[in-house]
């Protein structure tokens, strides 16, 4: 079995990702999210509209994609950038296994750094395990799974993964998906919102997609991204003479 290989890839990925100073970057947005929530909660003890804005718009549409972007592009992209991936790939380890394990590490890290704080903020904001808090938690978990597949794929395809990922998150999801209704069908942010809204039933989330559309599209995009990433890694090549 390839259990040993999987464990080694996971351990290397985790240490390479968390060992860098970048790891502090992961922690800042969720910390801001929780702190802002606590501050707002103290300022507005009464029920108001703000939990949807801060948790839905800021939490799900800003903190989640940006944190997933940093993590998702680190797990594979950092090793490709510095060339250490060669030591991993110069062994008979299966390429789909490398992608699968790195993706799993990224998804779990994103859940820990975003979905859990999102739940925590939801509990604080709404004063308990409300539909909104649980719905947003579910949306964040699903988003962690979907975003990371795409960002791992992007880092297998290009060395400018962070720039490309940022363009996707800001331009496609942030602008186009708001202006062009058709673009929402290809927006992971909308899948996450659709899943969150199926539990929360809150018009303030502005979810455009139904649960079934969000789940089916999310699964398709995730699977396609991982297959493309594994194929691309199997064709990983070293450039000729170093300049």
């Amino acid at each position, binding site marked *: 079995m*390839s259990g*040993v*290989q999987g*464990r*080694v*890839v996971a*351990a*290397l990925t985790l*240490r*390479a990702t968390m*060992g860098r100073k970048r790891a502090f970057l992961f922690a800042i947005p969720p910390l801001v999210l929780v702190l802002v929530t606590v501050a707002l909660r103290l300022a507005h003890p009464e029920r108001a509209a703000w939990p949807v804005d801060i948790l839905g718009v800021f939490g799900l549409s800003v903190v989640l994609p940006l944190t997933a972007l940093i993590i998702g592009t680190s797990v594979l992209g950092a090793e490709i950038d*510095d*060339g*250490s991936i*060669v*030591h*991993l*790939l*110069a*062994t*008979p*380890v*299966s*390429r789909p296994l490398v992608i699968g394990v790195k993706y799993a590490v990224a998804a779990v890290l994103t859940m820990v750094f975003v979905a859990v704080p999102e739940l925590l903020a939801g509990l604080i904001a709404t004063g308990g395990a409300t539909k909104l808090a649980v719905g947003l938690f579910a949306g964040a978990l699903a988003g962690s799974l979907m975003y990371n597949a795409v960002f791992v794929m992007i880092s297998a395809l290009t060395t400018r993964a962070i720039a490309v990922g940022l363009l996707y998150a800001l331009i496609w999801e942030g602008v186009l998906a708001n202006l062009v209704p058709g673009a929402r069908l290809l927006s992971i942010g909308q899948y996450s919102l659709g899943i969150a809204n199926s539990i929360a039933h809150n018009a303030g989330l502005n979810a455009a997609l139904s649960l079934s559309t969000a789940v089916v599209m999310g699964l398709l995009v995730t699977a396609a991204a991982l297959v493309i990433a594994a194929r691309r890694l*199997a*064709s*990983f*090549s*070293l450039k*000729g*003479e*170093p300049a």
Partner: protein
Amino acid sequence: MTTIELSHVSRWYGNVVAINDITMSIGPGVTGLLGPNGAGKSTLLHLAAGFLPPSRGELTVDGRPSWHNPGIYRAVGLVPERDSVYAFLTGEAFVRATAQLQRLPDPAAATRRAIGIVEMADAKDRRISTYSKGMRQRIKVAAALVHDPAVLLLDEPFNGMDPRQRLHMMDLLHRLGEQGRTILFSSHILEEVERLSGTIQVIVAGRLAASGDFRAIRRLMTSRPHVFVVRTSDDRRLGAALIGRPAVTGVEVTGRGLQVRASDYGAFSRELAVLAKDQGIRLRELLPADESLESVFAYLVET
């Protein structure tokens, strides 16, 4: 017996040809891949290591194509040129991780053995980030050797090493070659290849310029025509005398002295001083004009 076989292999990037129709067979023992920077040595090693597909032609290791075939890494170890390792690991952890990725039955024993071969046991518990260049190179070799591969590929293994580390690495590669492994390493330094390998492959501008026994190629290199620049008290008169000698094939009067082309290096160097003395001409300066490695390689390509 494991061989690396190239059959009419070419590799290009856009319009740039990095490897041009190379056919060669590399068998057990140490083989040096010699050529100036940018000649295509790294490209060839990457092709052999399965980290680059040939644009044309066929490349096999042990009879199997190396591209899209991770299975070959059970028989192949690669020491890349780039000094990029998991620097946060200790030397031992790095080698052991490789042993586990190879799914060796006893990774701990294999790790000990590989670290022993490169004589890094004393430093194995230190982080790689604290290693010197030579130690990093050795730990990379240990990782590449941990599964006891029949083929070892090394890209510029002596780069950045001090003379002592260099000797140690040469000795190591020599021993590995004597054990019957197929060792292929690249270098742009003549002396490294000369000391280490009986067989060399010279690559210039993507082409195989010379191939075979080192001594034969060395002779070819020293017997090539040499160009000298001579400054004297009377360039024209010496030039006239020199052109009468069989060892000299050309003389040109230039602003910076006489440019002399000699077909026989030894005869020319013996005759020059005698000739000048007989003519009563003073020699002020004698400089070899084309001693760069590139010109040596260029000559090999022409012949």
